[in-house]
């Protein structure tokens, strides 16, 4: 497996960019180029900075350079019967672990096991002053200093270049079963909330069209007894369904309209927006394919205290993420200055102001 440390070269390039005030477009596998606002600046390729630095199965932690392929990380873990518990989507074979963390992408297990940010234990970064810094570590509990490693999750490279990340990993479940139920979206939401209040080995739920799909994960006995309790038919597509769901390969995701990701309290009622829906995470993540305009979508979602991301755009959108209110935007601006005073990292990739 490929191993290479080019942190010094990356650092030099950041130093040069800083001196010449050249914006940098940080790029790993380039699989998430579609996500966020339009990348600008000179490409800073970090894909050659790769390799698993340390993996200790009994310590439940893996440390890998940011350019390490996500598939490789998952293979290394699978060989020890372990996994990334946040089940990240890759959106392409070239996806890297760095890009995954920078986007905080998490899959179907998220509502039950946590997001990428929940599993990050430590990071090495280069800040806007071209300094190589290290935060957190490889231990489960660490409250020394501010939690910079989690702050990097979802910051889309706007605060620094990720060089390496340490991630908590978990054992793979012994057994998994996928169950399907024919029912309406209202009844599905009701059912998943009822299940969530019980001690059950549910690890994913999805409602698409008129089918509720539920995954059970755990010991053989636990999955068997939960299936007896819940009833339902075993899905013919089995576990492939969840892979297709997270990679947006289900037929739902086909088409030429904008794909919106709506993040809401799980018990938010059916929204008053036209379009095709797919519900994940017990209703806390809803995909919407709609012809409604941005303003209408954001307004409806904001009314329910949620936020909307234009996940895949087919038209032009000024904002991809839900605009921040003034005081929060100011904190974002100040944090950007704290990490990247010359604004060289992915400027405008997340919000125009940072």
């Amino acid at each position, binding site marked *: 497996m490929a191993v290479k440390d080019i942190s010094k070269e990356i650092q030099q390039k950041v130093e040069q960019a800083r001196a010449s005030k050249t914006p940098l477009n940080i790029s790993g596998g380039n699989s998430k180029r579609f996500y966020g606002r339009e990348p600008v600046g000179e490409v800073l390729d970090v894909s050659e900075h790769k390799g698993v630095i340390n993996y200790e199965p009994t310590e439940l932690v893996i440390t890998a350079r940011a350019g390490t392929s996500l598939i490789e990380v998952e293979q290394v873990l699978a060989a020890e019967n372990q996994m990334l518990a946040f089940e990240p989507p890759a959106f392409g074979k070239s996806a890297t672990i760095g890009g995954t963390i920078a986007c905080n992408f998490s899959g179907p297990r998220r509502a039950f096991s946590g997001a990428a940010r929940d599993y990050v234990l430590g990071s090495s970064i280069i800040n806007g002053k071209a300094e190589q810094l290290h935060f957190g570590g490889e231990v489960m509990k660490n409250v020394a200093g501010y939690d910079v490693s989690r702050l990097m999750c979802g910051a889309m490279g706007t605060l620094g270049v990720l060089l390496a990340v340490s991630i908590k990993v978990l054992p793979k479940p012994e057994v998994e079963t996928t169950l399907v139920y024919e029912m309406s979206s209202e009844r599905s939401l009701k059912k998943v909330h009822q299940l969530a209040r019980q001690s059950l080995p549910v690890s994913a739920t999805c409602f698409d069209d008129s089918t509720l799909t539920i995954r059970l994960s755990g010991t053989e*006995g636990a999955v068997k007894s939960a299936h007896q309790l819940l009833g339902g038919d075993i899905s013919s597509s089995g576990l492939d369904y969840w892979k297709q769901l997270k990679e947006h390969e289900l037929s739902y995701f086909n088409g030429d309209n904008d794909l919106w990701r709506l*993040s809401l309290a799980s018990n938010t009622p059916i929204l008053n927006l036209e379009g095709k829906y797919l519900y994940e995470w017990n209703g806390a993540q809803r995909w919407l394919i709609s012809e409604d305009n941005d303003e209408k979508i954001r307004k409806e979602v904001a009314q329910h205290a949620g936020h909307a991301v234009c996940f895949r755009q087919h038209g032009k959108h000024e904002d991809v993420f839900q605009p921040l209110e003034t005081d929060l935007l100011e904190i974002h601006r100040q944090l950007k200055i704290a990490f990247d005073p010359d604004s060289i990292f992915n400027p405008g990739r997340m919000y125009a102001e940072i």
Partner: protein
Amino acid sequence: MSSHCEHEHTFNTNRDALISALRQVLPDDSLLYEKEDLRPYECDGLSAYRQLPMVVAIPTTVAQVQEIMRICYHLEVPVVARGAGTGLSGGALPHEQGVLLSLARFNAIINVDTENRTAVVQPGVRNLAISEAAARHKLYYAPDPSSQIACSIGGNVAENSGGVHCLKYGLTVHNILKLKVVTVEGKLITIGSNALDAPGYDLLALMTGSEGMLGVIVEVTVKLLPLPERTQVILAAFDDVVKAGTAVGNIIAAGIIPAGLEMMDRLAIEAAEDFVHAGYPLDAQAILLCELDGTHAEVSEYVLQVRDILLNSGATEVRTAKDEQERLLFWKGRKAAFPAVGRISPDYYCMDGTIPRKRLPEVLQTIAELSKEYDLRVANVFHAGDGNLHPLILYDANKPGELERTEEFGGKILESCVAVGGTITGEHGVGMEKINQMCVQFKSQELIQFHAIKNAFDAKGLLNPGKAVPTLHRCAEFGAMHIHHGEMPFPDIERF
């Protein structure tokens, strides 16, 4: 050194002006400034550090907190927020020139949402009170620091508190959704949301564990979990602590994540047994407590597997609690370990390092050697599953010089944790106590980055000044005797 990053922490507060301004916004019973009234606030759970504040403000409304912050911002007065005052690192140690802001009266549970499985609570609500309120819905709040009967949720967020169930259920940061925070300027902001994520940077993670340095928490939305169908505890005895440590690794290697996995060494076992009569084996060098929870079926399967693993790892005895009463008794000894040690020594000092678990034998060896060197006994209590070590150093504060010796010994233990790739604090926070050891764990550029973050929220440096992140000057003084990762620390600044 970057000039905007350093605050000298010297303030010159006009006491009369401060009191008269605060009296405009607070009723008489919410403001204390006579010396005898200030006394109860002079320390938190780390009583070795004491300092009287200039005034104590005990507001009852968020609007009052905002007013207090506006006044202090305008007058440039430092503010130290305080919850239940149970913290163990001096994070709520008052500032002599400042306001001690007590959130104790914010003690209402605003709502429990059973469908979304969340609770909205004020910061002064006790940790255990949340689970008690949720219990009738068969829900609970997972993080359970050992002080949970007294500690408040606001303090838990400020410290990113853990507990005995972290390995499976995470820390505070994994179990909260939303915060309402009053900024240093007195603005009320909302961080996070009722959804599983929020737009923008992960300020929720940044705020959690920030030790009162970035804002004042005035409301917390926590996640609730369904109570497990069944919980079971296994007690295993070992004639060697190293074997107990290996057993922990073997359980995890088998693909089992216990709800709790605790280790105690001989001195801790003796003290606990003497105190609560939990039935611990007194001839053991170490015991492990392994809690398994989940559905009936999976707990049954795991109990059998874990018993086998423990026996194969060299346990001299393995007992499964025969009923709920015995399960609670097994835990009682562990939960009472600190006060139990308090009975066999006039004073004890609790350390909080975390290490990669496989380095346990060498760290325990180092602690044993230091114990001889400093001539002070140590009882070890260990969150074995997640590598969080709580050595308790036994000392007598009335013997001249013994506290100083104890602190030096403690500092050395933390430095040995850093040396094996661990950290100086797993769950108690840096506060005032471990400020010097921060210089060992972080290099100067990293500390400057922390100061820059602080500056983004609090440019005047009024919130909890002097805590959590040391100035480079402080590190230079301390660091003169220390080497970081084989390099001389702070080569760029003047030596004293």
